[in-house]
């Protein structure tokens, strides 16, 4: 089972740990302030000759109440990083702790229970259930975890993402941006320690993308969540407090208070750094 060393997650849900601009690296932060910690996490796909090292002993820790973007070229391991950190995939070696609790390679059911109490997801393809309405999709994680559903709070959350008048709609009656906002509301209602967003704006037009990114910012600043976002878009990354760069499965630098131009510049030369470092 999972060991919990941190204090109870629910006590941190009021946004009283507003360290929004604290940056991502946070190595000096005390254990209780760390939302996500990876220690020497490695993951290799395939075997023997065709083996590809997607993650190579990645170590990082993210403070509570921060918004971090993870960037890197295709194949740099950013999706693998997100999946291993979020408990969707099992690393070959290394330790992942969320809110002080260590994620271990238990059964799929144990991993699921670990995830649903600590982690929220926002995906590029929304992953809303077509058979459920907006309101039903939003409360689904609570229902599955047998947690009490506070209807007023759900309505409040959906109103906050601008969908207060769409509670009875089905996902296929909504635009992409609206669907992604439902996904964000769904990630917020369980009050998770960390929200992982995988290319959340990848399928959206610029205006919807901006709305979604602002909502992710609010999740950090207003609700005190910790957000980790994988993206290849410098504009999206500029909404984060800090950017972690990944190349060939290793951390290749960090940028605080990123701007669009600085991120694009850094990305363009990411290959050079790795070559020089090798």
């Amino acid at each position, binding site marked *: 089972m999972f060991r919990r060393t941190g204090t109870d997650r629910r006590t941190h849900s009021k946004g009283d740990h507003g360290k929004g601009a604290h940056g991502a690296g946070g190595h000096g932060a005390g254990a209780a302030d760390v939302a996500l910690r990876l220690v020497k996490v490695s993951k290799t796909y395939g075997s023997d000759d065709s083996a590809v090292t997607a993650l190579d002993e990645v170590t990082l820790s993210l403070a509570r109440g921060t918004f971090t973007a993870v960037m890197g070229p295709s194949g740099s391991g950013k999706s693998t990083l997100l999946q291993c950190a979020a408990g*969707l995939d099992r690393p070959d070696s290394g330790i992942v702790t969320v809110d002080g609790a260590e994620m271990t390679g238990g059964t799929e059911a144990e991993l699921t229970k670990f995830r649903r109490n600590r982690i929220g997801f926002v995906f590029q*393809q929304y*992953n*809303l*259930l*077509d058979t459920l309405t907006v309101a039903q999709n939003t409360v*689904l*994680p609570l229902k*599955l975890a047998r947690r009490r559903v506070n209807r007023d709070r759900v309505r409040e959350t959906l109103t906050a993402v601008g969908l207060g008048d769409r509670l009875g709609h089905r996902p296929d009656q909504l635009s992409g941006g609206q669907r992604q906002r439902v996904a964000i509301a769904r990630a917020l209602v369980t009050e998770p320690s960390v929200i992982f967003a995988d290319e959340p704006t990848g399928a959206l037009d610029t205006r919807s993308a901006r709305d979604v990114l602002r909502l992710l910012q609010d999740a950090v600043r207003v609700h005190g969540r910790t957000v980790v976002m994988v993206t290849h878009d410098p504009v999206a990354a500029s909404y984060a407090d800090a950017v972690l760069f990944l190349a060939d499965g290793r951390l290749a630098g960090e940028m605080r208070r990123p701007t669009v131009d600085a991120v694009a510049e850094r990305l363009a030369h990411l290959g050079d750094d790795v070559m020089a470092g090798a």
Partner: protein
Amino acid sequence: MFTMFTLAMRSVRQRPGRFAATLLSAFLGAAIIMTFNSMHDTAGAPGVDSVSANTLSTAAGVVGGYGTLLVFFAVASTLTVNVRQRSAEIELLRCSGATPAQLKRMVVGEAVAVALVGALLAVGPAMLGGRVLLDVFQDSGQVAESVDHTFGPIALFSGLDITVLAAAGAAFLAVRRATSGRRRSRGRGRTFLVRGSLALGGLAICITFVLSSTDAALMAPPAYGAILLSVGLALLSPGLLRSLLGRLPLRGPSGYPAVHGLRARTAELAGVMVPLTLFIGMATATLYMQGVENDAIDAAGVPKSVDAKNLETLNLTVVGIIVVFSCIMLVNSLYAATTYRRREFGQQRLAGATPGQVLGMVGIESLVLTVTGVVLGTGAALAGIVSFTTVRTDSVLPDRGLGIWLGVVAVAVAATMGTSLVTAWRVVRTPAISAVALAA
């Protein structure tokens, strides 16, 4: 033409597993048709007395007719699933410039090839089956001992022709739905079908009361009535479920998505409900009516006539065939429906459902379906049984106990729950994140 045919043959050769269900239906269908039609050949041989010839031809005629219909439905059901599973491949071909006519040729070509293989494989078993069937008729004295089994041109060609034609027709319909590009509204056709089958079923039940208790054909109207009512009620069931589901007290973490999922998918449930209801209605009605008939003959104190024995053999054979084919259709539709939901299951798991909860949801769904099928099928069967029993005997209900019904229900439950749960369990074994990505 040549290109599409080559493509079709390649497709069959490289992925034989995908055609297993179609091959099995074609094989079983052809085996049944050939087995019974070889009775025509046997009856036509020189030196067969008229009573024997009559028995053999009746058996061939009745079961051969059923067989043709069943082959068509079973092959159509498996091909519809096959085409739907390959929607990505068909879409790719469409984007690569294949016209709807070319796609039609490809799918029909595949179906014909598979059906032909199935029918040819069935020749051997059908020869053996024909011999066994003749033995059964001879043992019960329905056919003279001197008659020898003949497997002739009628058996061979009817088997091959019917199977291949049924497969071609079914494939044509399946691909037309897939390539027409837009959804045709099926509302009016469906309503007509429901009303038609319910009205005809009711009429057939009413006709029973016009016949006399010793009429040789007394069993036919209630049997057809039960079949038609089963189909009509099964087609009605999606609408019925939609209004009922809102009132079911299913809350828990598995019940909640199960109820909402079923409500949203009710329109697609007909493919599962028709074989399920038909199976229960048909098997229950025929078995009980045959029981009542046997009891009535015993009570009259006369030995069973050849016609009565014929009827019993035919009834049991027809029930057996329908059971097998309904099961194939049921298992195939359920397997397809469940596999098709890989992405949905992945999404539920990403939302925090454990594999156990997903299986729980599937279990609840199949339970709701099974109960609905049992209720409707039993209702349809009761209509037939009650009308037959009332006319044939003095009582209203057969004096037979619930044993047969329980047996039929047990088979239905095992097929429905077993297929859904085993398939879902296999689907859930893929990691949630790749399940979502695969279908994206």
